[in-house]
């Protein structure tokens, strides 16, 4: 029988290391699962059509738009959000660099920027400015003109992360 948008399906996934099992409407986005069902409101929704990058999360270590993914597609996946990248006490080195450089104003894009930067630095520990700019080109910031964001990522890259820290 054909699947309808409101039909409920069961999905099991891992979010920030915790197992999650839910029965959800097929049309429910991953962003809605995270924000509304799990209360992880650090993931922000800015455009709902996959351009602005505010909703970026890591899915099995790769950045993904949680507004474009259906929650029920996530069967077996491991999802990491800004909450999962934030230490229980204090901030990660990348977050500290963002704060030191004032790499935000309103802060709405920031979680997505941190997630995208985490992916970048995992693959390219010493990116130059052009590489940073290209890596963040999928995340819109309307406030900062990107200057301090680029500085923050470069600063975090220059100071290797503590191997024990989440970022």
């Amino acid at each position, binding site marked *: 029988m054909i699947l309808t948008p409101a039909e409920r399906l069961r999905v099991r996934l891992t979010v920030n290391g915790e197992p999650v099992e839910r029965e959800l409407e097929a049309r*429910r986005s991953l962003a809605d699962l995270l924000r509304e069902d799990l209360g992880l409101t650090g993931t922000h929704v800015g455009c709902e059509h996959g351009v602005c990058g505010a909703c970026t999360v890591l899915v099995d270590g790769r950045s993904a738009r949680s507004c474009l993914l259906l929650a029920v597609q996530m069967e077996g996946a491991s999802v990491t959000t800004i909450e999962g990248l934030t230490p229980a006490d204090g901030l990660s080195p990348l977050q500290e660099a963002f704060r030191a450089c004032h790499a935000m104003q309103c802060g709405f894009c920031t979680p997505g920027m941190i997630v995208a930067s985490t992916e970048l630095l995992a693959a390219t520990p010493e990116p130059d400015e052009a590489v940073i700019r290209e890596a963040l080109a999928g995340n819109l910031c309307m406030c900062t003109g990107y200057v*301090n964001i680029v500085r923050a990522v470069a600063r975090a890259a220059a100071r290797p992360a503590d191997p024990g820290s989440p970022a």
Partner: protein
Amino acid sequence: MSEPGGGWVGVSLPLKEDARLVAGRGRFVDDLGRARLLHAAMLRSPHAHARVVRLDASEAAAMPGVLAVLTGAEVAARSGPIRPLIPTTAAVPDHCLAVDRVRYVGEPVAAVAAVDRATAEDALERIHVEYAPLSAVVDPEAAMRPGAPLLYPELGTNVVWHDTLTYGDVDGALARADGVLRERFAIQRYASTPLETFGAIAEYDAGTDAFEFWTNDQRPGLTISILAASLGVPQSRVRLHCPDIGGAFGNKRRPAYLLVCALLARAAGRPVKWIEDRIENLTALMHACNGIMDVELAYRADGTLLALDVRDVADEGKNLLTPTQHNLIKLGNIANGYRIPAVRYEAWSVLTNKCPSGANRGIGKPFMCFAIERAMTRLARRLGLDPAELRLRNYVTADQMPYTTPTGAEYDSGDYPATLRLALERFDYAGWRAEQARARAEGRLLGIGIATSVEPAGTNLASYELVTGRRAASGSAEAAMVRVEPDGQVRVSLGDPSSGQGYETVVAQIVADELGVTPEAVSVARGFDSATTPWLYLSGNYSNKFSVTDVGAVVGAAARVRAKLLRIAAHRLEIDVADLELRDGAAVVRGAPDRRLAIAELARTAYADVLGLPPGEDPGLESHHIHQNPLARPVDASRRIRPQLVFANAAHCCLVEIDPRTGGITLRKYVVVHDCGRELNPLIVEGMVHGSTVHGIGAALLEEFRYDETGQLLTSTFMDYLKPTAADVPTIEIDRLEHPSPVTPLGAKGVGEGGAIPGPAAVANAVEDALAHLGVVVRSLPITPEQVWRWLSAAKPAGSTEP
């Protein structure tokens, strides 16, 4: 943290709020919940102009999970029309949903509240609307012509305001001039598009007939009065909260949406949340006015400016909230930083079948600056002068400050020539001019653009008397509260909710200096709560006003608390107040630092041991203060106006390279030298300059709300309404001068809009500079690669593939 020698103000203190925002711990309106919360969705017009013949929502209302449905007819019966945000001549009723006629694509006609957003959106599909399409008018000059389709037939015209303001002998100057430069410029519709869209939660308490709102509306003072009037309740029964606001830039003020939520909440008996989606945001929230400007600049052979004559058409769309706002703010800023003895301004404010225009970073000033700075650059080319030299010959100079412009603005301080000179130096202007010539010889197209601007701050609604003939609102003011809590820690609240300006940090710096404590000891309330924040009609986050009014409110409230702390300490120490100072968290006897009373101890006296107070002193340590900026004036007998008050300034210098084959434009270098008076926290100031400059770049090269001739918006997603990404813009290099304002308490000036004002002109001047040898003149924005390719193609010999 110990107090720096010169105090906390002026220190690049990392931001308190950044610590939570970087961890995703901000609280934005969509992060908030309420028990039994419903979710709203709105049905919007697919037509630019149509009569609503029939609207049947009965099928939607019967759907499971739907708790309330609202139509235009019901809105008209249950609520009053929306009061304009400013005094206006367009006295036509405007409700929160279209009643019998739609006037732009995206205008809401019905709304649903349901158990979740998906159900609400499903229900919209069951609302049946029959429209009778009408001819739409999209072009503002067409809208001005007799016989044009009328948005409001009862007004008899689409022109909301037309007037000619003359200051000085313009005709004489035009007649005497050695030459007159005449140009026509246009600007597109664009918007700053905060990354967080608009949203609200409304709750109705039937027991007390009271409404409560949580919203990212950036101008709560005015909004509360509009909501109360439309809902028919006293303002004392409307409570409004602003949580963290994810950017605003002027766009976030639409009381209609709050009213829709309120009416749904009252009907359903449950709280209702509505979060605008991005297509709704781009289609229907707020666009900067597009417009057309004819400029005549009369000059002497040496380049001295004699007169400026401007005809300005502002396309308001269906803007009944703030029509004429763009016009008046342009008029207030018309002379830019130049000595122009005579000015004439003929203005039209025109309604069309497009999204309501309204406040957007810089309101009108980016276009005014674009027109003037393009004209100056054209004039320099005509006279064979360097564009920097022509500007230097015409600036208001530092020794002429304060300087009153012909239209009534008072430039309070600054050194405009020095600002440009420093920018040229930082840019290496001479070096790049030489490089440009070398590159040209190689067939490469480099262009250098210069634009400079004044950046006014603050607001004064008295100026609208020029339009309406009566004064309905006036002045420039904000309110703040400073309270030392019983434990000695400090709490501050402000009528202006930050939307990214770092108030929790910079306000703490200001108060820390006043009270001799550290910024950590000062907690500044996030956002706004009308029940706990002091506020007035003018309260809000807009008009670049922090330095003009808010700082004064904070300083004033803190100064009263400071005086009281000192009086209590003097009484307890049996010493004269003049012998005491507040520092290191205590009242300390000058010259005898061991004799001290900690602020916590003074607070204990003030709240708990009130018999220890000086005779006649009231218990408690709390003060409210409202600061009014002294520069605000009514319209004077010469029709001079002062819509904004305190003037910062900036010089932009940028380098573009154009791909001669594709027309692609690369910004290679961008230098800004700005002067916003005393910088209260340079880390915040720099961020503002970076961000607003990139807004200007976006307007220059990428962003356009483009309508077809039937009024359909063609760019309603971020896939076709293009924003600058990190890969599109260079690092904005900044340097500064600091000429403190004599009319603000700490000498600070506005800094939120400065980059957005000259940015479009600087980039346009650079592009034209790269292509001028091909006869190219930039007269409109955005300058797309397609446009440049067409210019290059037209300049090439037929059949040639090389430039």
